[in-house]
């Protein structure tokens, strides 16, 4: 595995303020702490060349996990290994093998032209000229980097700046790139362009990508695998297809009928398969199951004048929303 996280924990300690003056003075000498588990027993492995999405609601522990993987934060316990490095211990040698984009931070120089920022990064990462030109060529060709190559970073639009940030993170041909909300605030066209570039590098150069995003489009278009984290714990690790199958309320047939819907519902409910049947607006929905194939369903509903029939699946966004909501309810019940 290129990335291996074993039983990662990160605990933040913050001092508890005293209630009275006496308590406040006493706490100066002997402080009391409250502990927050930001990440709890998270384990996963990512193979070389994978593109994995790390998702979860705000405050779930995604960014803390990314920071531990990039060597910025030390885990309170547990072990991380990326490309054979301990990110915290070997930080300076390790970061030469990774690229990082924090969507709300910049590694570019605000007052200097884009090309100067890139030259500084080239010097910092000791990138040979040939590699530098080769890595840039894709972003020049597909991203239109040349349009604003000589402009100071402060004059760029958000989309142009993010394109530069992503190009900068790939500049030293890293083995793995961590993208923390790389498409935040971008318009549809720029998002599509960005996703295309990331997908291409992941596919052609075999660069491993770990992306966190609240944008379902990023997850669907880029990743093959989902790591779902909530309340600091890893709740799901698997393919998108598997997540779609296992999360949400399943797959349905939806029929719009001209005849008596209640009678049709009663008829379907009486079917020996015992499938769930429900009204949803103008539609009558029945759970999709091989025990009630489509031809048989059409035959059953034929007397009720079928105007339309379609398969219904929840979107990934709805599935994730349901997942997060269940997590909140679970946490409230546990409290």
């Amino acid at each position, binding site marked *: 595995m290129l990335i291996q996280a074993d039983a990662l924990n990160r605990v*933040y300690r913050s001092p508890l303020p005293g209630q009275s003056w006496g308590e406040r003075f006493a706490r100066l000498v002997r402080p009391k702490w409250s502990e927050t588990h930001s990440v709890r027993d998270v384990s996963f492995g990512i193979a070389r060349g994978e593109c994995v999405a790390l998702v979860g609601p705000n405050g779930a522990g995604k*960014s803390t996990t990314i*920071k531990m993987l*990039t*060597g*910025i*934060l*030390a885990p309170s316990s547990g072990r991380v290994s990326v490309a054979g490095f301990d990110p915290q211990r070997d*930080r*300076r*040698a390790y*970061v*030469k093998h*990774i690229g*990082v984009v*924090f*969507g*709300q*931070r*910049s*590694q570019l*120089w605000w*007052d*200097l032209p884009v090309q*100067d920022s890139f*030259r*500084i*990064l080239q*010097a*910092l*990462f*000791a990138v040979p000229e040939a590699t530098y030109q080769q890595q840039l060529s894709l972003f020049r060709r597909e991203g239109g980097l040349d349009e604003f190559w000589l402009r100071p970073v402060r004059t760029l639009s958000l989309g142009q700046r993010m394109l530069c940030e992503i190009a900068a993170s790939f500049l030293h041909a890293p083995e793995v790139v961590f993208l*923390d*909300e790389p498409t935040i605030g971008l318009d549809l066209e720029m998002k599509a362009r960005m996703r295309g570039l990331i997908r291409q590098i992941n596919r052609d150069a075999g660069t491993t990508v770990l992306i966190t995003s609240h944008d379902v489009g990023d997850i669907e278009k880029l990743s093959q695998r989902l790591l779902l984290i909530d309340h600091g714990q890893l709740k799901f690790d698997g393919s998108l297809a598997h997540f779609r199958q296992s999360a949400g309320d399943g797959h349905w047939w939806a029929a719009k009928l001209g005849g008596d819907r209640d009678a049709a519902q009663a008829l379907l409910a009486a079917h020996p398969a015992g499938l769930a049947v429900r009204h949803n607006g103008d539609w009558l929905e029945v759970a999709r199951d091989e025990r009630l194939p489509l031809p048989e369903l059409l035959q059953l509903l034929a007397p009720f004048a079928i105007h339309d029939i379609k398969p219904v699946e929840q979107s990934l966004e709805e599935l994730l929303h349901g997942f997060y909501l269940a997590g909140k309810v679970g946490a409230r019940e546990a409290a």
Partner: protein
Amino acid sequence: MSTLRACYQLALANGRVTATDRKGRLIICVGYLLGMWLLYWLWRGLYLNDPSRAGLDFATALTHVATAQTLFAIITTPADWRLAREIRSGEVASQLTQPMNLALRHGAMALGAVAAKALYMLPAFALFLWWAGLNLAPSSWPVALASLVCSFVLLFCLAFIVGLAGFLATDLWGIIASKDAVVQFLGGALIPLAFFPPAAQTLLHVLPFAHFFNTPVAYLTGQLHGPESLLIQACWALAFMLFAHLASLQVQRKLVVFGA
């Protein structure tokens, strides 16, 4: 070699950023010359009834203070403000994903800013010396320049250590203002250390304070000749570098960067 190239690129970049603001440069130079003009008349007033004070004549005292104030304007860098701001904003997270020591990065950038400021402030300083009829007469330019380098290292390391306090405190204004006041007063930038009692002078020379400004200025103005003070200054510079490095390691070990 690659580290040196990276330092050069960072110094060049920050030097360019410092030097690009033409209006800012002009305002700084005009303000500086105004300050020097006021300094001239202040010291002229102090020497009106007495040709010699603390063993210094008017020209020597004014040259000392004017040179020290110019040095303060040039080699004092806002590394403390910059680092504290980057820590508070979380920008430091991006820097820690680059293969460079935090202190070295800020040191290279500070050096670039100092070089840029020297380029546009030294002509103003030369203009003032010409107008006031003063001149610098170091007995050895290499020793004086070495002392200037040590002074830069001392001031940068101090600013860097203070900036690291951004990991602990929200507002560093009080700490930085106090540091600047102490460094200027006890370092001989406001008044020459010759005006201090002899015991205090000895103590300030043994401690690092005199070496912030008094030692390089004394070499530049020809008041100091031997290498003893430079050696003490160099020892303090090494100690400050070591302390800054250890502080940086300690702070990074405890690092917490909140939010995305």
